[in-house]
């Protein structure tokens, strides 16, 4: 009798610890995805010493000033009462649980390509951090009602929801890089210019944008020799993403330095290699954004 009881007891303990470690593993995986995304740094108001992921950071765009939202698991002011499906719908379709369309300043155009499993892990991680009670700040848009109508037009006619598809003609490394860059690391959101509705202009894929987020210039990162990063080796690219140091010894600045600090620097070497492999196969586009004539 006692023996049976002990067996059952041990069995239960093992089950329990397996569940916990599965959870922990999921959170760990989610944390990696979180960092690969750049640490969602837009959602932390660093300049004003805001709390982690509690939002409130202003993001200036040609369409007005957006304020990032609270994505901590606080039930009242954050996303604490979102179900898995709510989270996936927001990330893949850009629709809030209440059915509102997000403006693509929230990069769901890229995030939609993140695989379901990766999204669930990401949610598990976000739900493991401390909730912060902090109300969202309303956006200050140039045309307040103008937000919805063109948005819905854009979503109906221009944007289309997509899945990441493996390219069988390319190597495994290349495909891993393509997946990371197109979805999680969302490089195009800054490095590809936008059309007048705010959507990405795919003909200028990664050819740089003069008014990226916060009005910052995001340079041309296609392999064009004159105006892009054609002279960078793959090692140069992966080293840069890990450290922020460019091949000429200059240190990167602005949003790029922030996103490296809060995220990309934690990418494992294999992923960095994959990203570099993929990026060096972009179509070179000549697009000179830097002011000619002003020297450093």
């Amino acid at each position: 009798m006692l023996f049976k009881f002990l067996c059952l007891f041990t069995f239960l303990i093992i089950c329990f610890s397996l569940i916990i470690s599965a959870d922990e593993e999921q959170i760990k995986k989610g944390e990696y995805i979180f960092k690969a995304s750049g640490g969602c740094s837009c959602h932390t108001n660093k300049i004003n010493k805001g709390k982690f992921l509690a939002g409130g950071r202003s993001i200036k765009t040609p369409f007005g000033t957006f304020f990032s939202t609270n994505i901590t698991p606080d039930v009242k002011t954050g996303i604490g009462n979102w179900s898995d499906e709510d989270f996936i719908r927001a990330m893949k379709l850009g629709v809030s649980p209440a059915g509102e369309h997000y403006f693509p300043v929230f990069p769901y155009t890229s995030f939609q390509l993140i695989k379901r499993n990766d999204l669930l892990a990401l949610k598990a991680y976000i739900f493991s951090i401390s909730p912060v009670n902090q109300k969202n700040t309303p956006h200050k848009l140039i045309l307040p009602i103008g937000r919805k109508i063109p948005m819905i037009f854009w979503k109906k006619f221009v944007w289309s929801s997509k899945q990441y598809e493996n390219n069988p003609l390319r190597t495994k490394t290349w495909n891993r890089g393509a997946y990371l860059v197109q979805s999680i690391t969302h490089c195009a959101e800054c490095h590809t210019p936008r059309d007048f509705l705010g959507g990405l202009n795919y003909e200028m894929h990664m050819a740089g944008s003069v008014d990226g987020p916060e009005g910052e210039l995001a340079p041309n990162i296609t392999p064009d020799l004159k105006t892009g990063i054609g002279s960078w080796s793959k090692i140069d690219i992966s080293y840069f993403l890990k450290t922020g140091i460019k091949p000429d010894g200059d240190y990167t600045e602005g949003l790029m330095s922030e996103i490296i600090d809060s995220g990309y620097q934690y990418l494992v070497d294999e992923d960095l290699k994959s990203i570099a492999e993929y990026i060096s196969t972009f179509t070179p586009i000549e697009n000179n954004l830097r002011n000619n004539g002003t020297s450093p």
Partner: protein
Amino acid sequence: MMKTKIFIFFTSIFLIFSSNKLVPSESAGMIKYRQNVMKAAAGHMGAIVSILKNNLPIRDHILEHANSLNQISKMTISIFPKGTGLGRTKAKNSIWKNWSKFEKISQDFVDESTKLMELAKNGDIQAIAKQIRKTGKTCGSCHRNFRKRD
């Protein structure tokens, strides 16, 4: 007596203005000089980084570059005299408005590059790789605050 006073008055005025303000032609020269010095700093950074990331068999060169970088770091303060914020330069005027902050970041550059030099003497590659990033960050932090973007 009166004459001496006037003399002292004008001399001190002259000294005040001549000591830390540059006339335009000198200022253009200073700007060019400064850009060359900054390029030299980036050159040494880039050189160390080339050795590290490509695993080049000339690791002993790292110390030389770290030494030079450290020398340059100590010049930073003196290559930004007042009156050199106009012309073909990306230096922001806020340098001279927030001089103590500028001084502090310049000192960080000196401190971090000194550590880099110490580590380069020991030759621990991992530690050097970490420290080069810390050193680079001091450059980035100054550029973020005080250098105009392209």
